[in-house]
């Protein structure tokens, strides 16, 4: 059906798009391993100094640790609250599912800058002193991870025959809690893991909330990245590439797991 001409056309389109997408990443990588790269097109020499300098910077390690702590706590909290909530919605109140589907769009529809205006005002003067602490980040990260987590887990719930599984478990003498932990939860594993990895790489890149609500009072990776903008470009490149390697790893894991689930 196709002639050589049109197949060449498709190849050109696909490869040039990939090239454009990959150029900033490649350039950053080359910059991070070059000893100096002044007003010339190609670098002068190669070195891994910038990486070792980065990994010896205690401030980087601390910021990275804080980011990991906040992201992982937020995701654990999300999983802990969202899975039982979806179970209850699907098993006891199926009518609520429609409402939930609208509610989980809110974190998508409302730009983070807008939410942070309200958050800053509500919690800055309240008795709950959480502005400037990781607690407010964990709360907001819970909401922005919600659409991803809810969709992924709800899809898994739709894929299994929840009512029949529960009836079978009850008939065999299991309590609802037993059935939930021993039968439903293992069935969700893959969908849950994929959504956790995906949300993790997404949360690690979050900047708006951390900048407006917390800033330098609790320097996360993104804030550190921003604060380092005045230092050597090679150093920041090494920083970006390190961050990027983690993102790639987790997105790759997520797609691996979700492909295995199908």
């Amino acid at each position, binding site marked *: *059906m196709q002639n050589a001409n049109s197949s060449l056309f498709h190849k050109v389109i696909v490869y040039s798009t990939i090239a*454009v997408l990959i150029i*900033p990443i490649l350039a950053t990588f080359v910059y991070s391993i070059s000893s100096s790269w002044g*007003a010339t097109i190609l670098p002068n020499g190669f070195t891994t100094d910038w990486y070792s300098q980065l990994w010896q910077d205690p401030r980087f390690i601390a910021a990275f640790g804080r980011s990991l702590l906040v992201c992982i706590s937020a995701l654990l909290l999300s999983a802990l609250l969202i899975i039982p909530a979806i*179970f209850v919605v699907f098993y006891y109140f199926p009518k609520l599912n429609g409402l939930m589907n609208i509610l989980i769009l*809110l974190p998508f529809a*409302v730009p983070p800058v807008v939410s942070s205006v309200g958050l800053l005002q509500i919690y800055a003067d309240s008795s709950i002193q959480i502005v400037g602490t990781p607690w407010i980040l964990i709360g907001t990260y819970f909401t922005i991870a919600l659409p991803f987590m809810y969709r992924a887990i709800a899809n898994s719930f739709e894929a299994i025959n929840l009512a029949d599984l529960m009836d079978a478990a009850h008939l065999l003498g299991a309590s609802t809690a037993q059935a939930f932990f021993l039968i439903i939860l293992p069935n969700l594993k893959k969908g849950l893991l994929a959504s956790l990895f995906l949300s993790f790489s997404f949360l690690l890149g979050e900047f708006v909330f951390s900048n407006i609500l917390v800033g330098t009072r609790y320097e996360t990776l993104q804030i550190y990245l921003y604060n380092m*903008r005045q230092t050597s470009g090679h150093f920041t490149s090494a920083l970006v590439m390190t*961050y990027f390697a983690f993102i790639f790893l987790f*997105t790759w894991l997520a797609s691996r797991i979700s492909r295995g689930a199908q």
Partner: protein
Amino acid sequence: MNTISVPAVETSNIKSTRKLLRLTKFKPALVLLPFALLFFMFQIAPMLWVLFNSFIYEDEFSLENYQEIFDSAFILQGFSNSLWLAVTSSLIAIIIAALFVSSLRRFDSRARDLIVSFTNMTANFSGVPLAFAFIIILGFNGALTLLLKKYGIIDDFNLYGQWGLLAIYIYFQVPLATLLLYPAFDALSDDWQAASSLLGAKNWQFWRYIGLPVLSPALLGTFIILIANAMGAYASIYALTSGNYNVITVRIASLVSGDIFLEPNLAAAISVLLILLLAFITLINQLLISRSYHAKR
């Protein structure tokens, strides 16, 4: 006699099971409570605060904040800059992504999977790190800027102005558009293209009369998400220009977290207008989708 009493027993049975069911549903509803509480604290409450306080001016209920926005050329410029960046970058990104995805369908599945997962990964390359990467390649002494200057293609490139920002917006919109459009192209059957070319249609005629009408709901839906994504974008532009380029998210943020001139209520009013604008665009989109091919069937 017996035949009459049986339904009565059954109804009372149903009633008591209903009552039992309501009681058994009380405990599960408690499970929803912490979830609902957290969602309220961090999503609903801030939205309500923004909505109410946009109408509060100097402790009184008034429309003064909104008046101030429409009197301020600076804030209006923020809106128009945001809109221009959002619409232009979304249009260009959706065209690139549509071409990319339609060509990608001609690749074998192994290569296709690989390319899709690569695009997946670049979708997470945004915000501050992306701004850095762009400074390295397109900044005043960026590698690409120098290369293009050497061959005389450009005189100079200002990454920190309108066109540089457009480039960075397009960059983060293309992977998102690709991910959203990729499944939609499965709706196109290869047989249709074969049939139309057998009947003598040219390639552009296939796309004009069959391909695009079938894809239009997906294209419109994706376009809306791209616009919302670009209107709400803050990290890339803030990292690139340190808040010196006037877009609406930067205006909002500087009114609540800047060092001087803190006016949270004005920020709230701008936020409400931003949400209304996004809602309006979505509404138009819904109207267009309902008139498109899929809805007619």
